[in-house]
């Protein structure tokens, strides 16, 4: 329980946690949607705008050099954080969604032809699904689903079965897009194994790490994935910034994404040539302040250590799963075993709509999400329209979970 003690101190780093909501202190349990920001991240933004703000790459004056340094240093920090070979493998985007669209478009355009296949899983977020629908429509490729294994028992376990993947990996498959950790079920997928299986059949892998980077150690070199995407705002960093990691070979086989300033080598009247990666994929003025904020966020997590953050989250998860057992009318979606999951926990209270539950919880200052969490295919597969989701961050405490369960008992009283 040692690192739970860390938490009570580090809560002071997050100004928003001092807020009162409807007379209660805020219990923010929607970290899968977005995370709160430590003072150091807010300070980084302020520091940038108060001292270094300038456009990057093109100026020879002091501010422009400082901004460029901050920006490129951010690239190095991200590369290091996820274990990438080099900072030139790091493309800055607006978020996970744009990162995946970039691959689906710039890689898909050149590498997908009619009749070929892309595999996605039934647990994908719309952002790792719709871009592939669009790429399939544009190229004539086919979208194939790696189905979930649902075992209804005391709880509904949603896992991906590697034997099923084996069957799906036929010759015509070009790419597999899979989440590292589900934003609903909490399930953690064995990416390294999946990549190995896929690569053995010549299939590329895009890993959606939106729900993973803040929750577990990441190592793209060890995982050997071809692409990896995540968002700054889900890793205690600012909005408006995301990352796409791509292997050098993949960068070489991609056409351009958006056109404009910064991504060109030479523009002539009818055609242009392109800068090298990563600049080739970063058209327009980049989000420099946001990169500085993201760097501060990664520093912040590093200070506590990803294994420690993960362990803390799993302790909270264990407690929450245990408290759930007191509610026979509560249906859990996702593994009940903390060794297969993160602290993202979705569930329903029988006979109460998740919207109504979340609304009552808000009256107690507790923030959880209700809805389909951008996973309609998964929800259809689970046979439900919507669910409730609590998801933990490094600042959450056991007592907040207890408050949630007391409030749930209250909800039951109101609606039954």
């Amino acid at each position, binding site marked *: 329980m040692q690192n739970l003690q860390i938490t009570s101190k580090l809560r002071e780093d997050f100004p928003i946690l001092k807020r009162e909501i409807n007379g209660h202190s805020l219990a923010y349990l929607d970290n899968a949607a977005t995370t709160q920001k430590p003072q150091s991240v807010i300070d980084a933004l302020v520091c940038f705008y108060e001292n270094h703000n300038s456009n990057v790459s093109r100026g020879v004056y002091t501010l422009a050099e400082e901004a460029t340094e901050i920006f490129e240093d951010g690239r190095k920090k991200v590369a290091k954080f996820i274990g990438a070979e080099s900072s030139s493998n790091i493309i800055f985007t607006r978020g996970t969604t744009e990162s995946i669209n970039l691959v689906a478009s710039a890689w898909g355009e050149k590498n997908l032809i009619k009749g070929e296949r892309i595999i996605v899983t039934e647990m994908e977020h719309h952002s790792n699904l719709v871009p592939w629908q669009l790429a399939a429509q544009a190229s004539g490729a086919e979208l194939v689903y790696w189905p979930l294994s649902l075992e209804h028992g005391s709880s509904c376990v949603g896992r991906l079965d590697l034997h099923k993947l084996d069957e799906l990996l036929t010759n015509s498959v070009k790419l597999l897009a899979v989440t590292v950790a589900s934003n609903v079920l909490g399930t953690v997928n064995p990416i390294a194994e999946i990549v190995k299986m896929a690569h053995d059949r010549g299939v590329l892998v895009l890993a959606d790490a939106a729900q993973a980077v803040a929750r577990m150690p990441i190592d793209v070199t060890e995982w050997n994935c071809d692409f990896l995407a995540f968002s700054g705002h889900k890793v205690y960093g600012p909005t408006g910034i995301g990352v796409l990691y791509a292997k050098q070979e993949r960068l070489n086989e991609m056409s351009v994404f958006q056109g404009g300033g910064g991504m060109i080598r030479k523009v002539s009247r009818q055609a242009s040539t392109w800068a090298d990666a990563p600049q080739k994929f970063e058209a327009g003025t980049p989000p420099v302040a946001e990169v500085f904020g993201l760097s501060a966020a990664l520093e912040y997590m590093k200070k506590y250590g990803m294994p420690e953050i993960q362990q803390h989250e799993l302790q909270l998860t264990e407690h929450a799963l245990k408290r759930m057992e007191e509610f026979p009318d509560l249906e859990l979606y996702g593994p009940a075993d903390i060794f297969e999951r993160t602290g993202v926990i979705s569930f329903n209270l029988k006979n*109460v709509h*998740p*919207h109504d539950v979340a*609304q009552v919880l808000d*009256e107690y200052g507790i923030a959880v999400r209700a809805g*389909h969490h951008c996973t309609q295919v998964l929800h259809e597969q689970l046979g439900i*329209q*919507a669910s409730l989701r609590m998801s933990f961050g490094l600042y959450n405490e056991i007592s907040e979970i207890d408050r949630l369960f007391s409030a749930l008992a209250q909800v039951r009283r*109101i*609606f039954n």
Partner: protein
Amino acid sequence: MTNPTIYRKLLLKHARHPKNSGRLKEPDLRATAYNPLCGDELELTLSMTGTVIEACKTQVRGCAICQASASMMSELIIKKTMTEVVQISSQFADSLQKETNDIPQDVECLRPLIALKAHRSRIKCMKLAWEALEDCAAQNQT
């Protein structure tokens, strides 16, 4: 939230025991409405005598507020003309939009819903039934 429970009682009554729930067998007008944010769905069926709504049923797959709103609406619109109910619908929409708390006489009975208007995220839930109603009205026009 100013004393939400007093409204909740009435809302919950409607949500638990919705009036005019289900589907009319041979409706004159029918419309569905959908909330993409949560997947909630609603089906409205109306039978008409001339321009007057003779009967009305709503089939709701949604939250308590959506259910209650549909139930209250059904009570309010039966025996009224399409022109009247469209006006009521727009008064309801206005009341949800405006900053002050005064509520026109015609939609006074929707006060328990309107009282929740500060919860902007729930407006869509409250309006789902009314969207279906306006869809029916549009069909009726053409």
